[in-house]
Structure formats: C-alpha cells, structure tokens
C-alpha cells in the first residue's frame, strides 16, 4: 500500500465516532491546560495518560486523546500570553511580546484570531511534512542496528543538552539522573535486582506515571506557590473578533516561513517548540521589522511564533514515530504511554501497526480543524476560564493527578513516591536543572542499555562496533557538533536573548 492509501485508512480510524469524540474532548482539555499558566503539554499528557489507560481505551484511541491534548496545549498557550502577558506554556513566550501590546491597544480579538489561524497553518504544514517524511524516514531507520540506535540516543541527548541554553552541565546531570532512575528494578538479561533495596514495590522498576506526574505536576504546584500573588487581571474587552483580509495578507508569508522552520526544528530530537518560536520571531523581526514596530503590538510578531510553535510540536512526532526516540519532553511521555500498552515505537510500527500510526497522523489533521473551530468562534468560553482561581484549580489538579497514579497499581507507595519525586523535582528545578532531559533519560534508559549490551554482544565486548558504520559515525559527528557549537556560538557569536527551558 502506498502512503495515500495508508493515510485514508488513518482517517478511517481518526474519524470513527469514539476517536472523533476523544479528539474533541482532548482538544478542549488541551486548550484549557495550555491556557492555564503553569500547566503545559507535559502536565496535560502526563495526567491524562494513566486515565486513558485505566479507562481501557484501545492504544490508538488513547494516543489520539493524548495527541489532541498536546496540540490543543499549543493552541491554548497563546490565550494567556495575549490576555494576561503570561505565557500559558513555554512555547508561547514569544507570543506575549507582541500579543499583549496588541491586547492593550484593544485588538485582543484580532490577536487571538490571527494566532489561531497561524497555529492552524503551522500544524497543517507540519502534517504535510509528516506524511511525506515519516514513511521515508521509517524505511531508512529499519537498517539501524543496536550500535546505530545507541549512537542515535546519544544524539538525542546531545540535542536536548546543547540547545538547553545557559546550563548544559545541568542538562547532562538531568539526563543521567533519568537514566539512573530507569535502571531501578529487575535487569531482564541477568535476573539481577538493581537499586531495589529489597522493596517489592521497586522490583518492577519505578512506576513511570508516578515519575512524570511527580516531577511535572507536583513540582509545578510548588512552583506556582511563588507566583499566585502577582496575578494580573485579564484584559476584558476583546475588540473586533476576526482578522480582516489585509491582516491575513500581511502575515501570510511570515506564517508559512515560520511553519516550515518550526517543522524542521521540531523534527530534530530534543529541540522543542520554545526554541522554534524564538527562532521564528527573531527571523521575522530581522526580515520585516523596518519601522521598529515589533515588540509594540505588531501582528506579524504574533503570527510567526505561533505558527512555528505549532508546527514544531507536530514535527516532534516524527522522530518518536519513525525512530522510537522522542523529540521533546511531551513525546517522551507519549512513548511512556505506549509502553503501558507494551508497544515500543519505532520503524517497525509502520508495518506492524499501520492503523495506530496512520490513525495518529490523521488525527492530527482532524484535531487541527477542531481546534481552529474551537479557538475562533468559541474563544469566549476559554477567556472566561482564565478567571478560575488557583485555590480551586490546584487541589483539583492534585486530586486528578493522584487518581491517575493510583489507577495503575492501586498502592499507597506510588502516591508517596509521587509526592517525594515532586519535592525532589521542585528542588532540582529551583537549582536550575531542567526536567525535559530527565524524563527523556528515564524513557530511553532501558532501550539505551539494551542496545549497548546487544551491540557489544555482537562483537564480544569490542567497543569498535559503536562507530563501525557510516550512519553511526555520522551520528557521533552530530553529537560532537551539538555539544561544541552552541557554547562556542554563545561565546563568540552575536548576542541574543537566551531561550528558556524547552517544553
């Protein structure tokens, strides 16, 4: 079957009534989660993942729900950026730069609708990119052996640490901690229990859901304690709701450029929506800012980062689906979700489970349309939700998180572990250690060790196999470039604002 037939099959899956309903629910929840400052896509996906599993949804439906939440978050983040000047999620930081000034000028409605439109274009460009690139990449990746996989995972870590900004050492630290957490439990090759301290609860390894919810949701709640006093009142008057034809023409090429850029950044493992939107904004400012209006409410400065943000979020599915190596923290959580179903993502998935893979890809397009409808005519519903006070919101998040963790094993141990990891995560985040590499390490740890051991088994311990093929040599060169270029660029290159931690 060719790509088009597969895609049609995928739309068959995505448009099945149950999956369409899940896409709708997921898009709505995603927009709300993305909009609320402090809650990003990782939190949304992490909280819904165990619930989807506990609801006994089939794997493709669960994935469609989680994908809808993820894409919805990228749509939702812009709402609070524009209305209260606080990004709803990390990818929407650049949207606030011009979005909030537009809202102050009484053009909040225009800013919201043009950013929804450019988000839609961004997601659509990425969808086309995925349909073209993913099968091809998966075909290519079938030739990967254990040594190539090991090198590829090292490349993913190099990307996520090299692009992390100020503190690459702390990103390495986070990745190693995540890898170390993944070694807890029974070693399946030798039957040895590692780091279990003779506890039954740890013999099967640390519960993935407890780790993700602890590190992201619980620690986020503790971080939110610092901010709740300084809540800015949301801008009430939205002004004209719809952008007009002139505004659309003005932003069109910037939107398309940023979408393409965002897709490529998203495909790169480790680089996320935050970096993509910052790059797109900088690019548009260089290209178009002849009158110095950027930063003072220029509509082009709203459209470009939103397009890049969304296309990069969609693009980060490419490495996850084709290589099994997630491209962002959120897709790392999705790999964990698949592991609950005993599915290992990777190139073989395209041939073994085409309904799952293509259903997921098609659902991106479906959810994108749903989100556009939700985010332009129905925007009022969401803006009203911004008024929900934290003292209702936070206990609600905590209770739903606990339900999710409890749903997997029904033990008190996992709940205590969730809180303990939340406190550890809070302390690490206060010390400047990013969480995304940690979760990537935790998800990839087992695969990385297995591939290393398998590769070395082939040569009976000879290390040379790790750089024995052109693909792995290329990947190691990539690792070196990722680790060396950003610090050198920061030292010798032009000064620019450092990107904040990736999504």
């Amino acid at each position, binding site marked *: 079957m060719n790509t088009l037939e597969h895609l049609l099959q995928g739309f068959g899956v995505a448009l099945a009534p149950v999956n369409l309903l899940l896409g709708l629910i997921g898009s709505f929840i995603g927009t709300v989660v993305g909009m609320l400052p402090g809650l990003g896509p990782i939190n949304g996906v992490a909280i819904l993942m165990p619930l989807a599993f506990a609801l006994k949804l089939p794997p493709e439906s669960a994935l469609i729900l989680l994908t809808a939440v993820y894409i919805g978050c990228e749509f939702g983040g812009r709402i609070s950026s524009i209305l209260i000047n606080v990004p709803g999620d990390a990818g929407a930081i650049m949207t606030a730069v011009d979005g909030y000034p537009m809202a102050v000028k009484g053009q909040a409605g225009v800013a919201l609708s043009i950013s929804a439109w450019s988000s839609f274009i961004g997601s659509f460009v990425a969808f086309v990119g995925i349909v073209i690139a993913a099968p091809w990449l998966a075909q290519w990746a079938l030739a990967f052996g254990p040594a190539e996989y090991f090198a590829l995972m090292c490349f993913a870590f190099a990307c996520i640490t090299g692009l992390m900004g100020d503190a690459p050492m702390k990103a390495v630290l986070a990745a190693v901690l995540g890898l*170390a957490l993944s070694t807890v439990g029974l*070693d399946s090759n030798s039957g040895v229990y*590692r*780091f279990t301290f003779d506890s039954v609860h740890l013999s099967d390894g640390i519960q993935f859901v407890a780790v993700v919810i602890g590190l992201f949701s619980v620690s986020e709640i*503790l971080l939110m304690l610092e901010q709740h006093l300084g809540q800015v009142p949301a801008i009430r008057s939205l002004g004209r709701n719809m952008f007009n034809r002139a505004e659309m023409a003005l932003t069109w090429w910037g939107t398309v450029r940023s979408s393409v850029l965002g897709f490529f950044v998203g495909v790169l493992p480790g680089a996320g929506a935050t970096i993509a939107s910052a790059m797109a904004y900088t690019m548009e400012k260089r290209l178009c800012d002849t009158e110095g209006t950027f930063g003072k409410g220029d509509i082009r400065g709203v459209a470009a980062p939103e397009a890049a943000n969304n296309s990069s979020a969609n693009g980060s599915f490419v490495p996850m689906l084709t290589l099994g190596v997630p491209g962002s923290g959120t897709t790392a959580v999705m790999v964990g979700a698949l592991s609950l179903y005993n599915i290992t993502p990777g190139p073989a998935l395209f041939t073994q489970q085409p309904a799952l893979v293509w259903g997921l890809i098609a659902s991106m397009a479906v959810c994108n349309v749903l989100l556009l409808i939700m985010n332009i005519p129905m925007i009022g519903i969401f803006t009203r939700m911004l008024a929900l006070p934290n003292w209702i919101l936070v206990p609600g998040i905590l209770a739903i998180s606990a339900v999710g963790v409890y749903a997997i094993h029904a033990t*008190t141990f996992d*709940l205590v572990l969730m809180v303990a990891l939340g406190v550890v995560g809070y302390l690490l985040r206060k010390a400047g250690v990013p969480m995304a590499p940690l979760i990537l390490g935790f998800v990839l740890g087992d695969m990385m060790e297995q591939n290393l*051991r398998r590769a070395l088994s082939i040569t009976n311990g000879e290390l040379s196999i790790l750089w024995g093929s052109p693909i792995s040599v290329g990947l190691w060169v990539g690792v070196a470039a990722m680790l060396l270029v950003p610090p050198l660029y920061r030292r010798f290159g032009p000064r620019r604002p450092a990107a904040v931690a990736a999504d």
Partner: protein
Amino acid sequence: MVDRILGLLCLALAAAMAWAAHGYAAEISYEPVGPRAFPTLLAAVLALVGLWLAVRPGRAVAGEGAGAHAAWLPLGLTVGAMLAYALLFQWLGFVLATALMTVPVGRSFGGRPLPLLATGLGLGLGLFFLFDKVFDVILPTGLLSFVLGGR
C-alpha cells in the same frame, strides 16, 4: 553556592551508585556486558558532572522563578498536606482525603476555609462519581465504604 551543593550531592550519589552497582553480577552470564556496566558508567558521568559543578559553579542561580521565593509556611503546608494525602488516600478513601487535602493546599493559594471545605467536598464527590462510577476507574472508598459501596 546552590551549584556547589548540587555538585557535592551528585558526587555522593555517584559514589553510592557505584558502590551498590559493584555487587551486581549475573550468576550465569551469556554476554560480555553484565548488569554492572551501565550503572557504573552512569555513576562515572554523574561524578564528572558533580565535580564540574562543585569546582566551577555558575554565576548566579538560574533556576525557574529565580529570585522569587515562596514563603516557607505555605510551602511546608502544601508539602505536608500532599504527603498526608498520599498516606491517607486509601484509609480515608478518595472523597474524604480529597476534601481534607483541599483545605490546607487551597489555603496556601489564598482561599478561605469555608469555601475551601465546600470545594473539597465537591471535588471529592464529583471526581469520585466521574471516575469510579462513570469511567470505572476504581478508587478507594475508605471510611465511607458503607455509603459509597465498598470494594
């Protein structure tokens, strides 16, 4: 300063990991790389990172929300309430535990006691019926099992 402490903690953790991993050996081994190698490798990288941070700490705290600092009281209250929630979740049951957790946690976020109690009960009952009864995600009923139907 934060970086130095972090670095020293890393070194300690790396030492503990290496020491624990030292004893991991397969009884019968089929492969050249056993269960000890990967943890030891990680411990080595962790030690290097720790050493780097301890010797060459960054200039300032670049943590999230740097500069800002939550007051100790709400922070302690929230952590304590969350821990109590985790420990009492099964014994009290979801509804009561959630209602009890909501009051101190919501208090730290500026809520008032009575509305919080109402919110807590509403959350507990609402989520219980949503998940346990509608979605069939089984939650503990605890002390209220005689009302909610113990399982």
